[in-house]
């Protein structure tokens, strides 16, 4: 039986088309992945199928669910939970922060699936145990890790017995190992039903065999079997998306970096709050070298960089800078570019401030801007009026204007689209090498570090 059958479904705001007509069918036991950039309209399709489009938007075309045709919104709503359910983005935000994991799941079993309380309770306990979450049943969402919360959310979404599960960016904001866990758990928990996943991450699409649909600017550019498309993309956009996956990046040329030490940490231990993040850690960073630091979130990658830069005091041990330079030549790039630049004045003004402060050579800016792809027109805008990628490149420009000897890049691309991520990280490493600056690049993505760095440190 086809669970989902949509023909010529499009989404409009007023008369403007946001999503071009899409036709697809999904059988029981099938998986469909919709792949596309942020803002490409892929979430709109999910909302149209679910029937929870924002009020300003209208849907055209026909949606058949479970063999029922011409459903009204009300009929669609009646199916929520029992036949069709949606796993929203960042599910820890959609779980109740005051209830224990076990209670939430039991409630779903009781109210949505309509079981008796005792069956609901025993079923949810069994389910949690099966997911390897037996020990966290009594914990609240804030006491769970992102991956655990994600699995609880998946369990809740499927507890009502829904056969068709729509997962909207289920791995957003998770690091690689948690991402893989979540995708595996999603696959396992929707065995027998149908799964529609929306993602911008090619790696997620790769892990979910089945159908694949690539969306660009509200238009389907390619669809078919996921394996075929990913190994043999026909459309240029699909190719670009696949190449943006760090696994596909070309290896960085290993330029001989000097053996001269720039900065060393000698048996340092650092605390953040009351927690000691690392103890007795020693490392040397050489001149003109790109060092990658990998590790799961919360293991102290950023803290290490802050300690090297002297932004955090070390509890014991010491950090030695082997080169006597002005303090502003030790720079940092931040994870979230929009939070690291003031929005009060134009980027141009910020750059002029910097040039004036350190009496820099203003003529240096033009070639650097060209190299980083920043136009003069763009510089007239404020930080809120440019994209994240553009802003991160501006941050890089400001850092490079100071001729840094050391640049600590704290997940500089994790908030960016895969395509932008590729460009920015490539520029960062190349330009830094051209300028003879050492880079410590932090990321939760080991593939990216592998491709971009001369040396990798695992925490």
């Amino acid at each position, binding site marked *: 039986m086809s669970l989902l059958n949509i023909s010529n479904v499009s989404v409009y705001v007023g008369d403007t088309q946001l999503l071009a007509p899409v036709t697809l069918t999904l059988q029981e036991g099938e998986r469909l992945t919709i792949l596309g950039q942020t803002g490409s309209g892929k979430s709109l399709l999910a909302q149209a199928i679910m029937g929870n489009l924002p009020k300003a938007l209208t849907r055209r075309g026909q949606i058949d669910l479970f063999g029922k045709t011409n459903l009204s919104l009300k009929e669609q709503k009646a199916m929520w939970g029992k036949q069709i359910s949606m796993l929203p983005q960042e599910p820890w935000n959609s779980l109740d922060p005051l209830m224990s994991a076990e209670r939430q799941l039991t409630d779903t079993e009781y109210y949505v699936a309509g079981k008796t309380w005792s069956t609901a309770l025993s079923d949810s306990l069994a389910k949690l145990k099966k997911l390897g979450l037996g020990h966290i049943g009594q914990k609240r969402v804030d006491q769970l890790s992102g991956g655990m919360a994600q699995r609880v959310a998946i369990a809740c979404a499927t507890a009502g017995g829904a056969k068709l599960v729509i997962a909207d960016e289920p791995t957003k904001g998770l690091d690689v190992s948690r991402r893989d866990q979540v995708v595996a758990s999603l696959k396992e928990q929707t065995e027998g039903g149908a799964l529609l996943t929306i993602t911008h991450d090619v790696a997620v699409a790769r892990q979910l065999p089945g159908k694949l649909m690539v969306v660009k600017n509200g238009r389907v550019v390619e669809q078919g079997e996921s394996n075929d498309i990913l190994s043999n993309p026909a459309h240029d956009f699909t190719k670009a998306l696949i190449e943006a996956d760090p696994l596909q990046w070309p290896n960085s040329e290993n330029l001989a970096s000097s053996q001269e030490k720039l900065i060393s940490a000698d048996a340092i231990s650092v605390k953040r709050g009351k927690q000691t993040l690392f103890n007795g850690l020693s490392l040397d960073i050489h001149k003109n070298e790109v060092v990658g630091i990998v590790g799961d979130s919360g293991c102290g990658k950023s803290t290490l960089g802050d300690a090297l*830069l002297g*932004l955090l005091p070390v509890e014991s041990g010491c950090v030695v800078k082997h080169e006597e330079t*002005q*303090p*502003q030549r*030790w*720079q*940092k790039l*931040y*994870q*979230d570019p929009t*939070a*690291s*630049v*003031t*929005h*009060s*004045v134009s980027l*141009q*003004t*910020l750059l*002029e*401030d*910097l*040039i*004036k*402060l*350190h009496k820099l050579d*203003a*003529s240096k*800016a*033009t070639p650097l*801007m060209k190299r980083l792809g920043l136009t*003069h027109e763009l510089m*007239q805008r404020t930080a809120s009026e440019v994209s994240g990628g553009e802003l991160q490149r501006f*941050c890089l420009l*400001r*850092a490079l204007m*100071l001729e840094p000897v050391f640049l600590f890049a704290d997940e500089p691309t994790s908030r960016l689209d895969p395509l932008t991520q590729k460009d920015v990280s490539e520029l960062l490493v190349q330009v830094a090498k051209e300028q003879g600056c050492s880079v410590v690049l932090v990321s939760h993505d080991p593939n990216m570090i592998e491709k971009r760095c001369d040396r990798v440190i695992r925490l």
Partner: protein
Amino acid sequence: MMYTEANSPPTPTFRPTNRVKKAFRSATSQQWFGFAILATLLIFSFLAPHFVSVDGAEQDLGAILTSPNAEHWLGTDHFGRSMWVRLADAIALSFGLAALCVLTASTAGIALGVLSAWFPTRFGKVVELLTTILLALPGLVLVLIFAAIVPGSFWMLYFAIALIQWVEYYRVVRAICQPLIHSPEMEASQLMGFGRWYCFKRHLLPAILPQVLTIAAFGAANAILMMASLGFVYVGIQPPLAELGLMTVELFPYYSDAPWLLAEPLVSLAAMVLGCQLLGRRNA
């Protein structure tokens, strides 16, 4: 701007005119209405005395409690003084006090708020203790105490009102600055070598300014009301000076004979407060 022009005289980095322009562009119709009321009253208070030859203290006991006529456009009070001139004087006095209070309280509040967010242990604790002591008494009682020390002194009133009003600015500014001071954007600026003044100008001030302007508008309304309340209970400005609250209580006995006279200061007071309140409203 092209980079080759960077050698020409540097453009001024702080452009208050831009900020004013921006504020005007984003003003709501309510704010425009409030602004219009205040502007009208201000113009009246400055220009009105120039239209007539008498001053506010000149008595004419032959013409008391007259209704508005060609000679006295708003009538005369129980001593035959021109209401037109006295009202203008009283409004000017209220505006003056409000402006002084807002300026002093906001400057002190911003300075103390920013400094105690920056130095939470040394400086912050002392200021916090100070505000706790101040807030232990109701504001009006505090002002009454000060007003009673030197009765009728404008400067004492100003000092007392500003003293209780800075706390609000301080609290809001400190709350906004605390997270900002540890934010990546400030850290980035400091790593690039920018000093505290730059951080204040670029990071803190743009964040606190919209809030401070709102508090200032409401604060001005409160200062005006407070002075009028004190005048009404004879603790504030003393006769023969014209003050809205004092005029109200002086004209109160004649409300049945000359209701228009009582209405004049009351309407002016209400209009001033309304103007300030509307000006302080922003888009939700």
